[in-house]
């Protein structure tokens, strides 16, 4: 297992390196640069000379690979650079935003599991009965509705019409409800069907019958025997979606005024704040690889038949 971790960490370095080159290249290819934004050209008297000076100060007149090399040089000294717009170190910017994104992510996961688990389990236990039908319809709705529409509708309903929840902002528990539910609902829709499918497949396995034949209590059959195996596909999808969740759910962040990593990234992209964009890509890259590593390790915990590299057979 340790060699798996080592292998993955090496992969992490390679993936992140390639990501950074790719992003840097794409960004430099895209037209525009941060100079106009930094100088507030739409408010202040700025001349072309000002712009040219700033460009050369920032090193934009040098070839792309030189600029990349400079950034990489800084990175190796563990310095991610400073944001053009705020003048703050990129690391500080990201660390300021990270707790907010984490809070959102945690809330979303809580909502997601608390909806999808019961729904998935009930659908699997009583397939084709009314709970199953309802979960199917909900899954379809959840997968089809765009999150910004759902968010606006929920704000309209709960903040304006019913006046029981605040429309935006963060800090209080009440302010957590709408954003986490908006995102959590669409995810829950997908997960409930995954859990249902996994469980139904498990229930048909011989060893479940064997457990029942030994008189093991039904709830144990569900939670200890069936659920664990059903978890495998769920955890796989979970790993994939965690990466994007940690990257920040941009739409929700803007709608509800949660200044997390997602809105930081969007602002940086619009303003061509290269150091921040690079830092963000790095961070998300690390998240995704680490999360997927944890997922792979958890496979081993859930089903010891799966050893590194080999697939488990049911």
């Amino acid at each position: 297992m340790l060699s798996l971790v080592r292998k993955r960490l090496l992969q992490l370095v390679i993936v992140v390196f390639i990501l950074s080159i790719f992003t840097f290249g794409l960004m430099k290819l895209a037209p525009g640069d941060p100079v106009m934004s930094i100088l507030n050209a739409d408010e202040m008297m700025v001349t072309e000379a000002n712009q040219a000076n700033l460009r050369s100060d920032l090193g934009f007149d040098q070839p792309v690979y030189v600029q990349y090399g400079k950034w990489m040089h800084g990175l190796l000294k563990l310095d991610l650079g400073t944001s053009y717009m705020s003048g703050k170190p990129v690391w500080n910017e990201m660390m300021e935003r990270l707790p907010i994104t984490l809070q959102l992510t945690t809330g979303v996961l809580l909502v997601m599991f608390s909806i999808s688990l019961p729904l998935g389990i009930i659908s699997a236990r009583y397939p084709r009965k009314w709970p199953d039908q309802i979960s199917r319809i909900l899954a379809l709705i959840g997968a089809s509705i765009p999150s910004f529409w759902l968010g606006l509708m929920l704000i309209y309903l709960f903040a304006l019409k019913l006046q029981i929840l605040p429309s935006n902002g963060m800090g209080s528990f009440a302010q957590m409800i709408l954003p986490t539910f908006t995102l959590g609902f669409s995810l829950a829709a997908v997960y409930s069907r995954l859990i249902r499918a996994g469980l139904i497949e498990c229930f048909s396995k011989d060893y479940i019958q064997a457990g029942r034949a030994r008189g093991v209590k039904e709830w144990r059959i569900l939670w200890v025997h069936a659920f664990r195996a059903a978890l495998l596909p769920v955890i796989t999808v979970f790993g994939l979606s965690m990466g994007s969740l940690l990257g920040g759910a941009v739409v929700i962040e803007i709608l509800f005024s949660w200044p997390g990593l997602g809105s930081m990234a969007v602002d940086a992209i619009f303003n061509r704040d290269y150091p921040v964009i690079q830092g963000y890509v790095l961070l998300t890259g690390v998240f995704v690889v680490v999360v997927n590593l944890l997922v792979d390790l958890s496979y081993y915990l859930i089903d010891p038949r799966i050893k590194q590299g080999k697939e488990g057979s049911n």
Partner: protein
Amino acid sequence: MKKNSLLALLICLFIFAASGCSTENSNSDSEREKMSEKNKKVTMIFSFKTANLDPHTSFIPIRAGITETLLKLNDDSNIEGWLAEKWGTLDNTTWEFIIRDNVTFQDGDKLDAAGVKASIERSIAVNESLGESLKIQSIEADGQNLTITTTGPYPALPSELLNPYTSIVNTAAELEMGQEEFRDSPVGTGPFIVKKFTSNQEVQVVKNGSYWAGEPKINEATIKFNEDANVRALAFQAKEADVVYNLPAEGIEAIEKDKELKVESVPGLRSHFILFNQQSSKVADVKVREALNLLINRKSIADDIMLGHAIPANGPFNSNLPFGSDDAVKKLDVNKAKLLLGEAGYKENADGKMEKEGKALKLELITYNARPELPLIAQLFQSDCAKAGVEIIIKTVENADAHLVANKDWDMSTYSNNTSPRGDGSYFLNTAFTETGALNVGGINLPEMNEVIKELNKTSDLDTRIQLTKDAATIIDKEVLHSYAVYPNIIVGVNDRIIDWVPTAEEYYILTHTMDVK
């Protein structure tokens, strides 16, 4: 069964949370009523967020009433003294300011010329482009007398001192509390003091009891930031905020149904217009530009695209301003346009298209989505041009400035600028019409215009300045350097409980000491 009890638990949790919030709300409602005699509170929502409250890099501190500048714009868009009681110059190079005597910073330190000097020096150090705008060579301070020497004759200095980035702050306080803290909690001279700032989310302020112009009527205020227009509208309707800036025009009808809510549509200082690529041969002929100018349906843009929340434009500056143009607004005139094109050598061919030397007139118009009305204006223009036989090809780009500078094959572009942010036309004329100006993406370089601008830069007499500005506008009109479409209004939602306050066009002085609630 386990899952049912889990579901039940969740439902209970949700109800508990929801009821907790509603009691919170109802508590604060009754609280508000009780405290209304003692504690007047206002909530606002702005459409831009800020990561810190440094007054020299953000407009929020002045808007929140935390800081003030030496000079301010009054309701007639004229410059008047604020922290500076009087000011004057003899040669437009040496400027004397008398700093008001009874002003203290919010931490008690007295405001004197030395403090102003330190603050201005800080602002130039912190803000990249401020130095260029102020053109200050040296500052001297003596008691309440401040002397600023500019690098050359610079009549525009007073209007540049209106810039929020020149807000006067207590640099001594910054030394004491450290730069990090100061940026989140600046010490200014304004009627409201920072109570709590949450980066990119909101700022809470309380009144400055010893404000020099009189005790503020409001006790405290919370200003929140939200970038989504729909959410701002919903929050306004849900009475979560008393004043909300930049409401979406489509939502106004629904809002106005509520008797407690008012929507102010304030004429703004911005212009939406079309600019021309001076290097393009197709629009090089002034007659062609004149024709195109007549194909802009300004009324329709104002009424249909902007839903009535705009004024048709007759020049670069809003007609309400003292230096705005008095000319009539050009109406849509397809026939006259065709005539003008004929004078430029175009004939209508069999397909109804304007043709010259065998080539139909096809023009590329750049537009962008950052301002949603611009692509719509482009489309309207396209259809009206088609009536005159001119084909317009619309190209939408992400970053207009970058595209316009990097490419040379475009002919026209929709554009939008705040043309007179500080009550003076020289900012816009200098940056958009001179060769070195950053906003001059079309490459305008007209000797006539350059002369007028140079003259304007030397003139300090207000009336002469106004006349010169109008002259510049006349030249722009004659040469059709830009085609101005509309001046969009600023749409602000104001709850009825706010009294003694209206939103103003410059969007600098928002939270004032005179604002009151019922």
